[in-house]
């Protein structure tokens, strides 16, 4: 596979194509790639899932450990989201200190989950001020064909739904004698991210790696529901070129319906 950067002619042609509403794989500009979710990537994880979105392939695992709570939330469990852009996944990723994209991805997923209130962390407190569960989500892309963040968000949600709480023995997690309890997750709110890219004056959702590399800017929104209403939970604009106001509004206006349609598909995979 190639790490050759996008050429001027390809970028110009894509810009023209996007203005015509055309993409190499025939999708509409705001069509999400088809996705599927599998479970049980690792039986050693408390929960795990694998998401394939087009050719993008991401595995997510959840581990739980008993730890002290953070000082400012003595009666709540902890959430920690990590991950790495494995060099396995792309000719562009190399071993060594993480590049910005590797740092950003887990942090975006963290904010999406935390702000949606999807996990009721107060139910993960064992002894106030002393012992709580820490939920550790690890995200690993294994093939990057674009839109990693969005695939990771679905993977994280699926893995959390698949998670079974370990037992407790002498204040430590007992991975052998697990409980039958799943994580305390909200029924009504399931967060998802949508990342839009921009090339020239065109906006495109769920790009392939080829499209991503030709684009100038991106913006990721996390959205879920709060008391029955659509609620944006997180946002991050990336890459160099700025967005215009009307572009931001146009994107945000698509989100509620996009969320509803995607959630319907995702729910088929959640047990």
């Amino acid at each position, binding site marked *: 596979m190639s790490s050759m950067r996008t050429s001027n002619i390809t970028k110009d042609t894509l810009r023209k194509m996007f203005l015509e509403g055309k993409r190499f794989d025939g999708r509409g500009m705001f069509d999400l790639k088809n996705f599927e979710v599998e479970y049980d*990537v690792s*039986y*050693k994880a408390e929960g*795990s899932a694998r998401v394939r979105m087009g050719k993008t392939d991401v595995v997510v695992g959840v*581990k739980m450990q008993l730890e002290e709570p953070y000082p400012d939330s003595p009666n709540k469990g902890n959430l920690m989201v990590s991950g790495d852009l494995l060099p396995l996944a792309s*000719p562009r990723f190399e071993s060594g200190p993480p590049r910005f994209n590797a740092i950003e991805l887990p942090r975006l997923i963290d904010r999406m989950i935390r702000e949606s209130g999807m996990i009721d962390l107060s139910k993960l407190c064992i002894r106030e001020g002393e012992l709580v569960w820490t939920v550790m989500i*690890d995200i690993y892309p*294994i093939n990057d*064909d674009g839109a990693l963040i969005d695939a990771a968000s679905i993977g994280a949600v699926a893995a959390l739904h698949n998670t079974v709480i370990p037992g407790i023995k002498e204040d430590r997690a007992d991975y052998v004698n697990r409980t039958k309890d799943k994580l305390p997750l909200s029924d009504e709110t399931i967060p998802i991210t949508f990342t839009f890219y921009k090339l020239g004056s065109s906006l495109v959702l769920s790009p392939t790696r080829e499209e991503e590399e030709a684009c100038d800017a991106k913006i990721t929104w996390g959205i879920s529901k709060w008391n029955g209403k659509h609620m944006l939970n997180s946002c991050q604009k990336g890459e160099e070129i700025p967005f215009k106001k009307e572009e931001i509004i146009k994107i945000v206006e698509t989100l509620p319906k996009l969320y509803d349609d995607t959630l319907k598909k995702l729910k088929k995979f959640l047990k």
Partner: protein
Amino acid sequence: MALKRKNGRKLDELRPMSAEVGIIPNADGSAMFVFGKTVAIAAVYGPRMLHPQHMQNPETGILRVNYDLLSFSVEDRKKPGPSRRSQEISKVTELALLPAVDINEFKNTVIDVQIYILQANAGTRTAGINAASMALANAGIPMKSLITSVAVGKIDKELVLDVDDEEEHFEEGEGSTDFPIAKIYGTDEYSLMQMDGKLPPEMIPKALDMADEAFEKIYEVQKNALKSYVSGEDVK
């Protein structure tokens, strides 16, 4: 006096194996290999440019292996980032694969082999080598043959093949010995050999014979995965 293995296997019985090729479209070659509950995936990128330049070898291409466990592949979550253990396994894996590949013509380049363990139940380095071997072939790297690898073990006084996690923790009598081996299939060249435990010298010939029998079975699995990848591709 034969040992009864807790998992019901015969002494020389391997765990069920499976393999799949081409699982990572971005890579030049890729594969997955499974021993029971141990799952390894491998991707090969290269020959490609090697930076920094001073690491290049003007006389040959170099093989660079990176092996690691995913955080959630083990019961006690492993913090992300290479550990001493993974660095050691990366190196011995490189030495296991190198004699089988012909990369002299790829001067000044690197062939990167990335191995990750999705699920660990002992034998991870051997599963990794088996996966990497298929990935190298899938990438079109000229190779003498595939590299096959298995962990011979000893539980108390008995030699066994392909120990699992539970057997690895056996502590009675002479305890558990781990003896991972790799060979270039069809040759007399053993390219990986490590040992950790208690092994009387006179047991070595039998241990190597047991490994050789395992290698026949492993090569079949690797070969079938490579063949069905191509014929599966062309159903249309």
